[in-house]
């Protein structure tokens, strides 16, 4: 076992895997990589198990040194990554040597980069997951974001394939973003006018964005009935508080809540949303469960094909 030495931890660098499942009923958040697309590709590029932990690096200012040679993969936001001062291309796996220094500087496109390592970062598992949920002080090394001077264990000298993702499979975070919505929950309690307004307006990503949810700003949409008995919240739920400004709830959402919800955004669209910075315009599109399920299954198949073709 070798260690990665954290020199600069950055704004918010956290250990994430696919999240914590089976404990929602005890009130534990799901947690997990916000951009599942980038996270899954990072592991696929190394032929890792799909749930191997990655570092989710928010906006850069991150620097660390490898104690021993191994293989890594970089996906997600382009944070101007360098290895020993030389620019490194995103969406590929590569070998690193003893003493190599990796930096993630500042966002070029997207917000969150994923740093995967052969066989995954070896941090403690809590409730079946290594994911950090800051609010619950769970996961990571100590339930918190990474700090300068900490060490992350990994398997030294691991062999992994060197490969690059096909350009057509790389998400474009600068492209227009239309979020597919499954009408559900209290959808019927919103007036026809409110629904039309919601699906025809531009919404802007606000400053209030975090791992719990993305608050959007635009024309207000109000549910007829604001009194709701708290109920379980699914991934991507569009919660509408009394001010009518929608919040798309993401991985660190609370398990139950009592605000009206218009429906749910598909999980792959949530991944793309999590890469957007304040000021980005997004729109909503009415969709259905079959469409988003098929999209999700095609993504899984793409990953499977990628890994089987290699071996």
């Amino acid at each position, binding site marked *: 076992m070798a260690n990665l030495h954290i020199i600069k931890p950055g704004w918010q660098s956290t250990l994430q895997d696919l999240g914590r499942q089976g404990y929602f*009923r005890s009130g534990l958040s799901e947690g997990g990589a916000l951009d599942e697309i980038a996270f899954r590709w990072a592991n696929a590029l190394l032929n890792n198990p799909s749930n191997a932990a990655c570092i989710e690096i928010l906006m850069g200012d991150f620097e660390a040194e490898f104690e021993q040679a191994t293989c890594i993969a970089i996906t997600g936001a382009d944070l101007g990554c360098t290895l020993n001062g030389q620019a490194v291309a995103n969406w590929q796996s590569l070998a690193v040597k003893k003493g190599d220094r990796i930096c993630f500087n500042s966002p070029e496109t997207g917000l969150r980069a994923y740093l995967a390592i052969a066989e995954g970062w070896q941090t403690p598992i809590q409730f079946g997951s290594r994911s950090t949920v800051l609010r619950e002080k769970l996961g990571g090394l100590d339930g918190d974001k990474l700090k300068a001077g900490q060490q992350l264990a990994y398997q030294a000298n691991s062999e992994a394939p060197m490969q690059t993702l096909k350009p057509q499979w790389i998400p474009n975070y600068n492209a227009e973003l239309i979020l597919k919505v499954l009408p559900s929950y209290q959808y019927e309690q919103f007036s026809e006018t409110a629904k039309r307004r919601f699906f025809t307006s531009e919404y802007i990503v606000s400053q209030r964005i975090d791992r719990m949810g993305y608050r959007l700003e635009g024309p207000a949409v109000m549910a007829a009935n604001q009194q709701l008995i708290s*109920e379980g919240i699914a991934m991507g739920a569009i919660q509408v508080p009394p001010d009518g400004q929608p919040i798309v709830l993401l991985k660190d959402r609370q398990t139950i809540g009592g605000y009206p919800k218009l429906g749910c955004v598909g999980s792959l669209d949530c991944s793309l949303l999590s890469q957007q910075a304040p000021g980005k315009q997004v729109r909503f599109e009415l969709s259905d469960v079959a469409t988003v399920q098929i999209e999700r299954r095609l993504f899984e198949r793409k990953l499977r094909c990628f890994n089987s073709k290699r071996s």
Partner: protein
Amino acid sequence: MKVSSVSENACLIQVGDQISESLTAVIAKLSSAIEEILGDALIDLIPSYTTLLCIYDLNKVDDLWMLKTLRQITQEVGTNQNHEVNTLESLGRLIELPVWYDPEVGYDLEEMASDKQMSHAELIQLHTAKEYRVFASGFMPGFAYMGSVNAALATPRQKTPRKAVAAGSVGIADTQTSVYPAQSPGGWNIIGRSPTRLFDISRGDKAALLQVGDRVRFLSIDKATFLELGGQLG
């Protein structure tokens, strides 16, 4: 009961419209039936006051299969419901939680008692007299929403939440009561403190002491017993 798809991997069962203990018992019954039938296609269940959210693995089953299966289960449980309702009421584990009711740790005990024109002893007596049911979990790991308290004890949340409510604090919000598993900001009216650990990572899968459907009774203890049982002041 109404079953609907709410997201690409979740279905919601609406069991009723009003919060009631019998509904919680039905939800518990549904939960075990769903766990048995869905097996590893089920990721998790989130029971709440009147609903049950079922999160499933969309790579194993699709929404049509889920809706059909859940509708069958709700029908079966619904038909058996009437003649079993009495036994259902008494289902659920009984958990006793010791509480030291005192202004030293119950920040709002004095004010609540004077607002309601009752003595501390009367207030404590009303809170301990009833067996409560866990309706929902959430807000933070191990936080259980229990009800319903005697109408005379019902108190709205504090207008401005406290920045820090100590772990173990026992509170009342409207007709519900709960215990804070860890220090947290909070707006519930605090009347005492329990030395029992509501959420303990070292218990593994049983980290959360209270589960939806459990029955809870509070027992009044004195300061010495509170400290003896590991209660923390401050």
